[in-house]
């Protein structure tokens, strides 16, 4: 396995690599990939301190509106903690692929929940099933408190059916638009009637609200339960194709390749085992084709977490990290709607491109991108002036561990730094310009590289 292939793999299963990771691992593709799955065998739930809710009962909340309001407010605050804890996790976990897939599924089974306990439960359900069996996964999602609230499943009753979940189950979660009829939606919604959750967020079936009559769905008739409906949907190979396409566009190339996706769907349709599907992708020769390297536009989270893989970054204030996510257009736990973030080119508009290009210097170097060319340099006076002018004006309080960067990259020459920082090819003219830069400072050159359109690719 070449270094370039290795980096490519690490960008897709995680958030990039640095010289340390590359030196540590075996170089044989099968070994490298197998190690990735071994590392992701374990499941470490994401858990923040939620003691503010301990001992609070449903009755208390009902009887005491003031307390209820206070709890709601605290819950929203805690949601911010959960957001930050999740981003920390992405940057530090050994369970790289599991975490990357959790992020992927969070934009597939899209859900927004203000009740932080339910939000955390939902997040951990994504994590638990991230590499498991897709059928079990869908059934678990259909019973999550957060999802029952978000898509009105808990309001879906025999006498008052609500089709919201049934529709999205097929349109967004399993089959894609156009592979079911309005009648299928109505009938399957009846099968999910009576789904509900208790105060703690555990699934509860309310039999008196469940419709026990016969339902006719995808040409079959029976007294189907919600789980039966999931089984029937997954009998359609379209589901394997739909999920494989989404995984291909996220992990391989935003431009779908029909032949490769068909191969994937054949593997997936056998048993809906997600781990096997991913193993097939990472072991396929085509995964490492040059056309697939550096063709993805990083999501804001990939961009941020990837940057901290190169230079460990500490946000001194939680609100800065939240603000940066907002400016970049992706705040975790707060998706735009049930369809999720569109991704790819949609990440980039005139505003977000300028934010992305400017952010590394703002976060890591007092907003300055050096301009050293050849032997000339802006004078130290000018630099001091600049820094004085900008002092106190910087919008964020961030500490960057440049020492760690310098030691990690000790054996990488400045000239070769771009091979680690940039994925894929560099525009010819830009590459020529980079040649003219004085690379005496590895730190400054790193910032320069991170301030390029090329740095947005992975």
């Amino acid at each position, binding site marked *: 396995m070449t270094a370039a292939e290795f980096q490519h793999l690490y960008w897709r299963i995680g958030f990039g690599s640095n010289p340390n990771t590359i030196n540590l691992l075996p170089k044989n593709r099968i070994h490298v990939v197998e190690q990735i799955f071994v590392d992701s065998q374990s499941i470490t739930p994401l858990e923040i301190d939620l003691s503010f809710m301990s001992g609070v009962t449903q009755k208390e909340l009902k009887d005491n509106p003031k307390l209820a309001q206070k709890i709601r407010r605290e819950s929203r605050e805690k949601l911010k903690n959960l957001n930050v804890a999740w981003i920390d996790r992405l940057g530090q976990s050994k369970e790289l692929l599991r975490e990357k897939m959790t992020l992927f599924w969070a934009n597939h089974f899209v859900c927004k929940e203000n009740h932080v306990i339910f939000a955390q439960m939902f997040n951990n359900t994504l994590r638990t099933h991230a590499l498991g069996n897709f059928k079990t996964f869908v059934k678990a999602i259909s019973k999550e408190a957060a999802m029952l609230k978000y898509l009105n499943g808990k309001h879906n009753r025999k006498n008052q059916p609500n089709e919201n979940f049934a529709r999205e189950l097929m349109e967004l979660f399993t089959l894609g638009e156009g592979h079911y009829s309005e009648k299928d939606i109505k009938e399957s919604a009846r099968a999910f009637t009576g789904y509900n959750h208790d105060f703690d967020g555990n699934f509860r079936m309310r039999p008196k609200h469940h419709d026990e009559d016969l339902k006719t769905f995808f040409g079959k008739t029976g007294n189907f339960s919600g789980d039966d409906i999931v089984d029937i949907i997954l009998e359609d190979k379209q589901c394997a194709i739909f999920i494989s396409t989404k995984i291909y566009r996220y992990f391989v190339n935003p431009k779908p390749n029909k032949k490769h996706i068909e191969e994937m769907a054949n593997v997936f349709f056998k048993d809906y085992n997600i781990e096997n599907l991913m193993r097939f992708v990472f072991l396929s020769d085509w995964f490492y084709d040059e056309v697939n390297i550096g063709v993805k536009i990083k999501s804001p989270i990939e961009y941020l977490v990837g940057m901290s893989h190169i230079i460990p970054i500490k946000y001194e204030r939680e609100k800065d990290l939240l603000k940066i996510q907002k400016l970049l257009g992706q705040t975790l736990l707060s998706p735009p709607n049930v369809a999720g973030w569109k991704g790819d080119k949609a990440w980039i508009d005139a505003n977000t*491109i300028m934010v992305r290009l400017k952010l590394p210097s703002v976060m890591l170097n007092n907003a300055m991108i050096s301009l050293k060319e050849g032997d000339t340099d802006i004078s130290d006076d000018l630099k001091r002036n600049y820094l004085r002018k900008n002092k106190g004006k910087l919008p964020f309080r961030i500490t960057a561990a440049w020492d760690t960067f310098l030691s990690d990259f000790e054996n990488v020459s400045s000239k070769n730094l771009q091979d680690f920082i940039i994925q894929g090819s560099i525009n010819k003219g830009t590459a020529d310009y980079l040649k003219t830069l004085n690379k005496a400072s590895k730190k400054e050159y790193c910032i320069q590289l991170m301030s390029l359109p090329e740095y947005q690719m992975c």
Partner: protein
Amino acid sequence: MDRRKFIKNSALASSLFFVPNFVKAFENVATNQLGYKRLVIVQLAGGNDGLNTIIPHNNDLYYNARPQLAITKDIIKLNDDLGFHPSLDPLRSLFDNGELSIINNVGYPNPVRSHFRSMDIWQTASGSGEYLQSGWIGRYLDQHGEKPYNAMEMDEQLSLAMKGEYFNGIATNDYKVLYNTAKDPYFKNVLSHYNDAHLSEHNLGYLYQTMIEAKSSANYIFENTNVKSSSEDYPQNNFAKQLKNVAQFINSGLDTKVFYTSLGGFDTHANQNKKQTQLLSQYAKSVSAFVNDLKQNNAFENTLILTFSEFGRRVKQNAANGTDHGSANNVFIIGKNLKQAGFYNNLASLSDLDDNGDLKYSVDFRSIYSTILKKWMNVSAKGIIPKEQKSLKFI
């Protein structure tokens, strides 16, 4: 020129040059302006209580439903049935001059009472059961836009309303900051070396193209905006600042068709009167200053101002002297040559409410969008508003 053609042409033209020329070529494309008619959108975020904004001062049902909350004093009566909240006094002259049309009971079928979701519906012009990933102004840009600055939002980031399938507007909370960022000498050097011989629609090409567009938009806005063009006194608040910026852009003749502004804080579940009084006053004073500004610069007759909120509030007040999320609400249209000024329609019945105790809608908000597109912007609503709507007669 349609979007695909535009991308093709600019790619073709640009392959002849290296960037300095290319950037220039880009800046010169906008020779055929989009026309002079402009739309300014004001979004009242949080769900403004329409019933205490346009008050049914002659209706017992209103006073019975809101024992502590009904406005009883200083209502500005506009006719026998309806009147302004006292804070809207600065808009009185607009109403009297026939420059304001109030459309009552605007909403959509199966209303959603979540802020987030309902705002989504208003911004994407979708139905309550469908999810669109582009906004209505964005889709207008897909078909008719040439530059990001053809639609500007006065904020730090772009709302969904302004994002198309292929093309986006630009957000400029402070256009000078955008300009200063874009003119960083490092970016200038990168772009002056950038070789677009292989520019195509692939992702890296798209990034460079967006960077060039951002830079040229930032330049365009900065260089063409005459700060002195607005001499009117505006109130001191963020919303007024947004409108003042819009006035400067309009008075300076920028080629921007749509401006998007927002005033938040209307989610008045508790102690509504104090908060709403203050917000409506901000709204009315700022809009009044804005209209005067435009009038002084002869720009008012080419400007239409649309004010909406994601939903109205429940007819019955709650126990905390506030109101909970409701459904149908009023929409304000401000402009010079309105076909039907004053009240466009009557307020819906306060006795015939929906199951939640909310007003029933009678005008679909998408028919307002559609009418504005057709009769004001002079374009077809096809492909912009997903479902065909009937035209209204307010313009």
